[in-house]
């Protein structure tokens, strides 16, 4: 009997299991294969902060959501069409999100009395009516994997660890994806452990074949490739990886070697890990004793003529602030990457928030202005990293680049840049002693970068206020006023080299939604759908440069009757905009639940505002 294949345009799948079940690997494999099929996609990994919470408990549930589509999409989807629940805890933590009538695939092998107890369930949700209204596919995956791997040299425990590949195979079958890319990945991954490669291959094939054999599904689905995608070469990329690549690229465009001084912290650590692999690019990575040393080595490296960079997350940014002031004072190029997470303090280290904006803008003693950028998506992280390098080098200034946990671990297809066409911005390190002064200025108010080792340019810099031009220590009150103004004006001057962003949607409308950072996808999806389906008069403006703000925003704001600012904090961008553009009113819409906005939340808020209910 042949099984019918139905075409779908847009699918959201969530894999959920215990944090030892390999859900992130399963999700990433499904993502990579889906990217190769040519769908647009977005992912949202959601894992616990504990490395291994007790197995089978609610605290240990790890999730990975992927949305893939035949059209251009911006978010990982609000509502899963399919939930794969590897155990009872994963089911109970996730089933409520699933679309009515959606598919729930449950591994009944992990719904024993003991599993129910660990998940704090009095009755079995597969049997007690909890899942009424869903299409439940109950499969004892543990048993199926054990059958498939009968005769394997692996222990029964290791055999069971292959169950995620069984599930992956099943999902490949259900959504008509090829298994070959994962077969290749397994061969490479377990090149030195062929018995593990074999077992996982067998599990993957068994899962794939089970779709036909066991007839638990009435049909299969197909999501065809995006048709009107922008031509180019694409690859799938996660935000932290894109950022690392952007930093290496930025350094090369500046004709400098990259130096990273860093300290491991979730969710920024991957950037250090990625860059540590790039020795043949001359990238120096120093894993230092603490966050302060991380930024200080970067400052020391910039002083020595390299492009210094440091990566961190919220609490680490707080520790780096004194050194940032030193970088402002000494006017050395420096990139400070902050992959924001929910705080304050340790907060929710694996959950998303965008609440370090005001710290980035103002979190230093005295007036210590520096440019602040934020990336909007995983692929955008590459461009923003290059842009941060450009500003740092051209203006001799530290720059803060804000990413967040949603971008860091989320993936999307990335249209690769034409490397030869990227604009270069070679650093102008001075070598000529004639007329050299440490605090002389160029047209951008940048001071000359004289690197130790250069004869005739011996000079002293430091945290004490410097006399204009000469760079000698100065306590002169007039000089401090002057230097403070120069530092301010230099950073404001960055506006001369950044474009005025364009709003997407109508040029004039009832409402403008202004966003920054990772809320891009939800706002873009929400506003597009409201315009398309309900003819709502709404536009979206997304800010990449948060300081200085680009020219022309005043005129843009004036074209809209109301302005809504959704952000994952208690009101930071809205407060900044209110202060900078007092003629307009900025309506803050905040969420601090450790989760990204859904497009639906954005739509509902816009509707409420336009109906005067908010």
């Amino acid at each position, binding site marked *: 009997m042949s099984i019918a294949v139905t075409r779908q345009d847009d699918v959201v799948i969530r894999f959920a299991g215990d944090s030892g079940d390999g859900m992130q690997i399963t999700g990433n494999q499904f993502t990579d294969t889906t*990217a*190769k099929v*040519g769908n647009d996609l977005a992912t949202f990994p959601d894992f616990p902060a504990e490395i291994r919470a007790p197995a089978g408990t609610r605290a240990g549930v790890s999730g990975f959501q992927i949305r893939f589509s035949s059209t251009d999409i911006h978010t990982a989807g609000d509502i899963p069409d399919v939930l794969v629940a590897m155990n009872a805890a994963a089911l109970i933590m996730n089933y409520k999100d699933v679309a009515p009538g959606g598919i729930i695939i449950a591994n009944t092998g992990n719904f024993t009395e003991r599993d129910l107890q660990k998940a704090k369930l009095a009755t079995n949700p597969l049997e007690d009516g909890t899942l009424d209204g869903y299409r439940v596919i109950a499969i004892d995956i543990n048993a199926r994997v054990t059958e498939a791997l009968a005769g394997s040299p692996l222990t029964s425990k290791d055999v069971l660890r292959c169950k995620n590949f069984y599930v992956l195979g099943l999902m490949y079958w259900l959504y008509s994806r090829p298994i070959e890319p994962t077969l290749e990945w397994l061969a490479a991954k377990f090149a030195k452990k062929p018995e593990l490669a074999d077992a996982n291959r067998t599990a993957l094939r068994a899962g794939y074949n089970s779709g036909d054999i066991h007839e638990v599904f009435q049909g299969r689905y197909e999501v065809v490739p*995006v048709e009107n995608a*922008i*031509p*180019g*070469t*694409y*690859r799938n990329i996660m935000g932290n990886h894109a950022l690392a*690549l952007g930093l*290496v*690229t930025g350094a*090369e465009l500046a004709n400098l*070697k990259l*130096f990273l001084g860093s300290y491991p912290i979730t969710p920024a650590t991957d950037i250090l890990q990625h860059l540590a692999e*790039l*020795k*043949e*690019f*001359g*990238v*120096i990575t*120093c894993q*230092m*004793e*603490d966050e*302060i*040393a991380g930024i*200080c*080595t970067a*400052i*020391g*490296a*910039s*002083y*020595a*003529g*390299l492009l*210094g960079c440091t990566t961190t997350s919220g609490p680490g940014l707080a520790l780096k602030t*004194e*050194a940032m002031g*030193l970088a402002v004072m000494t006017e050395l190029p420096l990139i400070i990457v902050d992959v924001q997470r929910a705080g304050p303090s340790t907060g929710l280290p694996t959950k998303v928030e965008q609440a370090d904006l005001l710290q980035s803008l103002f979190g230093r003693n005295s007036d210590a202005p520096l440019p602040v950028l934020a990336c909007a998506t995983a692929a955008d992280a590459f461009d923003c990293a290059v842009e941060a390098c450009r500003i740092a080098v051209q203006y001799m200034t530290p720059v803060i680049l804000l990413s967040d946990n949603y971008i860091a671990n989320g993936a999307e297809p990335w*249209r*690769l840049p034409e*490397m030869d066409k990227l604009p270069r911005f070679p650093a102008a390190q001075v070598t000529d002693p004639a007329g050299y002064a440490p605090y002389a200025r160029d047209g951008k108010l940048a001071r000359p970068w004289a690197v*130790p*080792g*250069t*004869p*005739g*340019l*011996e*000079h*002293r*810099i*430091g*945290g004490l206020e410097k006399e204009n031009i000469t760079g*000698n*220590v100065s306590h002169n009150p007039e000089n401090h006023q002057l230097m403070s103004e120069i530092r301010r004006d230099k950073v404001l001057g960055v506006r001369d080299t950044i474009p005025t962003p364009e709003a997407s949607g109508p040029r004039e409308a009832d409402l403008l939604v202004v966003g920054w950072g990772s809320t891009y996808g939800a706002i873009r999806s929400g506003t597009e759908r409201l315009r398309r389906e309900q003819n709502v008069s709404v536009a979206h403006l997304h800010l990449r440069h948060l300081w200085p703000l680009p020219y022309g925003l005043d005129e843009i704001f004036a074209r809209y009757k109301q302005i809504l600012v959704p952000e994952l904090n208690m009101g930071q961008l809205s407060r900044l905009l209110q202060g900078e553009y007092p003629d307009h009113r900025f309506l803050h819409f905040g969420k601090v639940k450790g989760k990204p906005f859904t497009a639906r939340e954005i739509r509902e808020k816009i509707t409420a505002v336009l109906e005067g209910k908010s």
Partner: protein
Amino acid sequence: MSAVQLTPKDLKSDQEVRWCPGCGDYAILNATQAALAEIGVPREKMTIISGIGCSSRFPYYMGCYGFHSIHGRAAAIATGTKTANPDLSVWVVTGDGDAMSIGGNHLIHAMRRNVDLKILMFNNQIYGLTKGQYSPTSPAGLKTKTSPYGSVDLPFNPINLALGSGATFVARTVDTNPKHIKSTLLAAAAHKGIAFVEIWQNCVIFNDGAWKDWSTKDARAERTIDLQPGQPLVFGKDNEKGLRISGGEVEVVAAADADVWDPTTAAPLAYIMAYLDEREDLPHALGIFRQHDKPTYDGAVKEQIDSLTAKKGKGDLKKLIYTKDAWQVG
């Protein structure tokens, strides 16, 4: 011998030196300029990096590159500078407060990593720039503005801290003996790896005479012993006394029976020499406590980059970004 021949004057900057009259820093500055003039490094390749405190004004007075940074962080900044460019001769000037309090973490890790830095730690057992509070090296009981009834903190022994952190070159000198400073700094400069040099320094204003029992010329002869490689452990006005170490105990013997000092030995004798400080009956040690050869951090970083570049070829950005996973649209 390098062709570069400087004079101490070449290493003076045009800035007026502003320490309190009588401050021990003047002698250290002069001796440092004299030493650095002789190390064969052109001045554009010398960089002095300091933290915060009286001693940390040092870079302004030196005619080479200099970086007066922030409190406690000089060792970290210098680690970045030296790793970025191992060709530079990087000197860190710091004080007991700067290095051992706020900067303690960076100090021990720079020593553990064996970054090829020369750390000069001026120890006056007091916070001078903040006007007289006890420091991590102040003796217990010291009465200061923040310890009016006597400090109850127990002090660090900087030499022991350095030895315990794995520093490959550990030495001590004193501001009252410029010749000794100079020879110690020359030995530090010749050492490949981190050099930690404690310099007893007198603060005339807030802790005058802290070292006078050991630092005056007469006291030095009787109450200190100079640890010089290959030399016998002798002291006294006429070098008539000596030290012998047996069974972990130190005893005073006639000069002829003294042990010969070897700072390259792996044995824990260096620790024993540091513990002389705690013995009233024995001289405090100056000179070179330890001198070990180990790979440097900056050298290892460079070597790893060089060998991987040789193996893989110079990184190609386009290949890095256009992976085999990429696919074509349109």
